[in-house]
């Protein structure tokens, strides 16, 4: 068996971008250290914070919740978990149960908010309506916009001042590439480990941002966490193409993901010069904070007659 570069025990992970082999113990320690390092470096958690952790039941949000719960040993803050039930038949039902079990195991308050209750339709229904109305928008577009809006609203209603999501390195790199391809400078600029609080918007933090997706999964498996690993039935489109492209790139050229992230971080301060800070307004339809008269969630729903 191949040996761990650091302690000589049997290796379970080949971290090619760093040129090291890791055993289960060294691997887990390094992931935990990277989480703590990101929290400290970007000042993601302060004493007295109330943090709402977005919890889908998937590996990323589950690992994020467990690491946040562990971190309470270092800092005094409150933690609650928020799950969004988008209404995806045969997919979300199981992950909801897993989310609930994890929150219970950690003794963390758990709140579930549903698309159906908040927007009058499940994602399955929204996708059907989108096809009928020929909007040309993917399920991921509706899901992303509506989930972000509902997470923000629920976190705010729970009295949280921060929303911690399970975005990992792969998610961040894919978002960078997607915004390049769509030439969306404003969205590109908003990416980062922390998106500061604005009127009505709770701060969003991403403690797993520098941990590759596969490492989050290996960590969850080694720690024996109960996670939901099914593929969303609506997944597809450009998001998946970008994901596959980046994973092929990383397989052939290790460290590509970190390089894309670092390059973005170097140019981000320069983008700042051409950005106009927006002043949040209240959406004329739902009252949620927005950068324009009508928020994106209401704009999408209105188009579907909802």
């Amino acid at each position, binding site marked *: 068996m191949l040996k761990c570069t650091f302690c000589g025990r049997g290796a379970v992970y*080949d971290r090619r971008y760093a040129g090291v082999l890791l055993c289960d113990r060294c691997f887990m320690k390094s992931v935990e250290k990277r989480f703590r390092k990101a929290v400290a470096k970007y000042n993601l958690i302060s004493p007295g914070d109330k943090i709402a952790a977005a919890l889908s039941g998937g590996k990323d949000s589950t690992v994020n919740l467990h690491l946040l719960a562990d971190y309470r040993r270092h800092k005094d803050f409150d933690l609650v978990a928020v799950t969004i039930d988008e209404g995806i038949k045969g997919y979300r039902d199981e992950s909801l149960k897993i989310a609930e079990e994890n929150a219970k195991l950690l003794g963390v308050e758990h709140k579930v908010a549903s698309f159906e209750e908040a927007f009058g339709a499940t994602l399955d229904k929204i996708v059907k309506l989108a096809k009928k109305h020929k909007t040309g928008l993917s399920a991921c577009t509706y899901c992303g916009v509506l989930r972000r809006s509902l997470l923000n609203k629920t976190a705010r209603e729970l009295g949280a001042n921060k929303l911690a999501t399970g975005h990992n390195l792969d998610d961040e790199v894919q978002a960078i590439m997607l915004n390049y391809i769509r030439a969306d400078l404003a969205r590109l600029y908003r990416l980062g480990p922390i998106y500061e609080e604005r009127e009505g918007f709770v701060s969003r933090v991403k403690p797993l941002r520098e941990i590759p997706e596969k490492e989050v999964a*290996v960590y969850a498996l080694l720690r024996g966490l109960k996670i939901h690993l099914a*593929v969303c039935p609506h*997944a597809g489109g450009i998001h998946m193409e970008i994901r596959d492209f980046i*994973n092929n790139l*990383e397989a052939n050229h290790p460290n590509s993901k970190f390089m894309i992230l670092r390059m973005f971080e170097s140019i981000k301060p320069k983008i700042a010069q051409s950005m106009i800070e927006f002043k949040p307004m209240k959406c004329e339809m739902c009252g949620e904070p927005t950068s324009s008269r009508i928020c994106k969630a209401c704009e999408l729903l209105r188009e579907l007659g909802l």
Partner: protein
Amino acid sequence: MIKMSNISVTVRLIGSKRREKLEISSRAKVIDLLKLLGQNPQVVVVRRNGKIVTEGERLAEGDLIEILPVVTGG
């Protein structure tokens, strides 16, 4: 010329009913098996006889190889 011998391993793709016996070179590593199956190591975790292993690990006769897709999206 030295003739390479083959070994037989059982492969199970978690999440599907796919389970098959494969003949592969006795010098093959996990990465070779993944390439043969068209799987990107970036998106799967491999367990050999129940334990997570690296892609550089050499395969042995009778191994049960489980491939767990971990990049699920959504």
